[in-house]
């Protein structure tokens, strides 16, 4: 796997973050890159070069956020630690392409502000458990060799025993492991897919075997891992593809190594579908029967996706992975038809996943 940061030719840094640890590491890691300093109020100094720019930004918004789920479907209640936007990997189906206005890779380099907010929000509520993660608006570890961001975050959260951190990735970076003192409070997580989807749609990401090998290494080091089949794509031959992926999981991991595993059918904003349709290369998965869901996103027609999710869930169950399975952004109807119960039967999905993340309590 070629390193996903290989395309970075320019670094734009807000003046206020030039001397931060993140900026210092990036300077050392990208000695050839051209640096552009952006003063307060100045316009962004580069345009039309989105693909090869890394922007180290002084972020002024909220770092700890709720997942942008919708009330129309069941959300897992994951809290996002917002550390940056966009991703150096090139997955064709990536919702970030439509979600953000540009493709500039951004890292919030003012970590001191992040620490203060996390201390206030998490440290200020020691009686409450937090399941947080950085993999919603970017890949948690794709930039790790360059920024060391997850190492810093792990080190910071060491003293907050009410917080469990999920690091979701399609890479195999494990450099953060040496920073971990309490493996039970860090959940390395991998997005998985059928082998042909990985090969065709996830350019720049690690292969399926490599991801599972990295997961096994974590499990052998005392971590529980999380797995996410998201997006599940529907294309000719998907049955065999996902069967293979499920069987591969069991080649590398034992059910008890897995904290939880999500299934999420492909859904996207209509703009992304238009972008993908206008690409030269044919996308089989977009030719299926997509309809507008209750949240305005395009989704596979309910009976079709129910059948697909149920088949994958049954395969997982037959391989001993049972109570770990949950559905990402689905309705009670689909839950019932796929798994035979609804989040309410679990005491609420967010609550259920907190219990999976903290099996021994906080």
């Amino acid at each position: 796997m070629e390193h996903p940061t290989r395309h970075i030719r320019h670094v734009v840094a807000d003046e206020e973050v030039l001397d931060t640890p993140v900026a210092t590491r990036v300077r050392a890691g990208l000695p050839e890159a051209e640096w552009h300093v952006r003063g307060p109020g100045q316009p962004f100094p580069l345009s039309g070069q989105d693909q090869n720019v890394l922007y180290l930004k002084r972020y002024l918004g909220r770092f700890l956020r709720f997942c942008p789920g919708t009330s129309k479907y069941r959300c897992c209640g994951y809290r996002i630690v917002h550390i940056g936007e966009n991703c150096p990997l090139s997955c064709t189906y990536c919702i970030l392409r439509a979600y953000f206005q540009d493709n500039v890779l951004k890292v919030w380099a003012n970590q001191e502000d992040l620490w203060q907010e996390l201390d206030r929000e998490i440290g200020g509520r020691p009686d409450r458990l937090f399941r947080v993660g950085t993999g919603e608006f970017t890949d948690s570890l794709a930039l790790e060799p360059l920024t060391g961001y997850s190492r810093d975050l792990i080190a910071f959260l060491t003293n907050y025993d009410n917080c469990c951190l999920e690091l979701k990735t399609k890479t195999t970076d494990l450099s953060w492991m040496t920073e971990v003192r309490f493996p039970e409070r860090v959940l390395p997580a991998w997005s998985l897919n059928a082998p042909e989807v990985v090969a065709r749609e996830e350019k720049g990401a690690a292969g399926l075997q490599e991801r599972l090998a990295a997961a096994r290494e974590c499990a052998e080091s005392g971590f529980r891992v999380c797995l996410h089949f998201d997006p599940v794509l529907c294309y000719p031959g998907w049955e065999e593809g996902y069967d293979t992926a499920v069987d591969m999981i069991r080649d590398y991991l034992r059910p008890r190594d897995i904290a939880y595993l999500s299934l999420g059918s492909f859904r996207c904003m209509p703009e992304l579908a238009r972008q993908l349709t206008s690409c030269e290369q044919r996308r089989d998965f977009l030719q299926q029967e997509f309809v507008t869901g209750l949240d305005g996103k395009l989704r596979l027609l309910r009976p079709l996706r129910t059948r697909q999710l149920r088949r994958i869930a049954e395969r997982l169950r037959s391989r001993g992975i049972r109570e770990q399975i949950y559905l990402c952004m689905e309705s009670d109807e689909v839950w019932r038809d796929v798994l035979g119960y609804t989040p309410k039967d679990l005491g609420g999905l967010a609550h259920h996943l907190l219990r999976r993340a903290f099996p021994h309590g906080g």
Partner: protein
Amino acid sequence: MAASQRLFTISPFAVDSSGDWLFWAEAPEEEFLQSIRELGQLEPVLVSEDEGPPALLAGYKRLLACRELGLDLLALAPGSPDPVARGRIYAESNRQRQLDAADLVRAGRYFARHLDAQGLDSVLSELSATEGGKRMPDLVRTWLRLDPQWDELLRAGHLPLQAAQALTRLNNEDAKALWPFFQNLRWSRNNALHFLGWLEEAASRERSSLAELLSSAGLDQILESDLSPKDRIRRLAQLARETRYPRLTELEAEFSAMVRDASRAGPWRIAPEAAFESDRIHLSTSIGPGQDLEHAARELERLHREGILERIRQWQRNRLGGAAEEESHDKDTE
């Protein structure tokens, strides 16, 4: 150019009016002829000073009117401009014209022969400044990639400029097969774009050519039917949607059949959740002043008593839970 300008009269038959820069040339209307007849030619036409006979640069209607009325033509000669300038002079002298998409395409065809992509974009932006907004130059440039024979359908209002994006993706065989569907039918923008999009996606999914799909789905039979043009368009769009969304439209048809009798008998309309995304159903009615609320309430009670709502629930369990897809898949793979 200004230094060489001169005003003169000339026989309208001595002026060559065949220049391809006269891209919006149209014969004069009766009102225009009447005005020239009564008031004479108030503004000179523009002609070029080329070797050979002068060529008309602007003033096509005035030229034709003078020919028809047997009048000499008042002309101004601004020199011998290059092809791009000829097009620009003509467009500028028609500044008052309300341009539509077909006008922009006609101008675009001319300028595309003489300008590079950037120059063409700049001219189209100028021309479309008041028409269609920022996207117009892009749309016109896309249309220009089509065979010019499609221009006549755009001009006739049979399909919209936005259709170009889908049409340019077609190969010659598919474009030829699709042509009759637009040749004699005037499609609204929405219908045309949906029709093209559904067909293209269905053909791609079936891995067949669009020409094959038009035939295998029975669309060509509808085109040749005796239905009125409006009904033909409605039926063609409907069948294209069924071809693109076979399961969804099948479910819609089943649901409609199931509630048809119940809805027909009473004031309640029963509809599923959009795209069957949940098992929720929507019951609606409207009651005007003086109308019988009690009747509507009794009818609602009847729907419940006769088990119609329960039948819907049963259907949802059977058809939306994915079991039917598994059965159909098992049959296909047997």
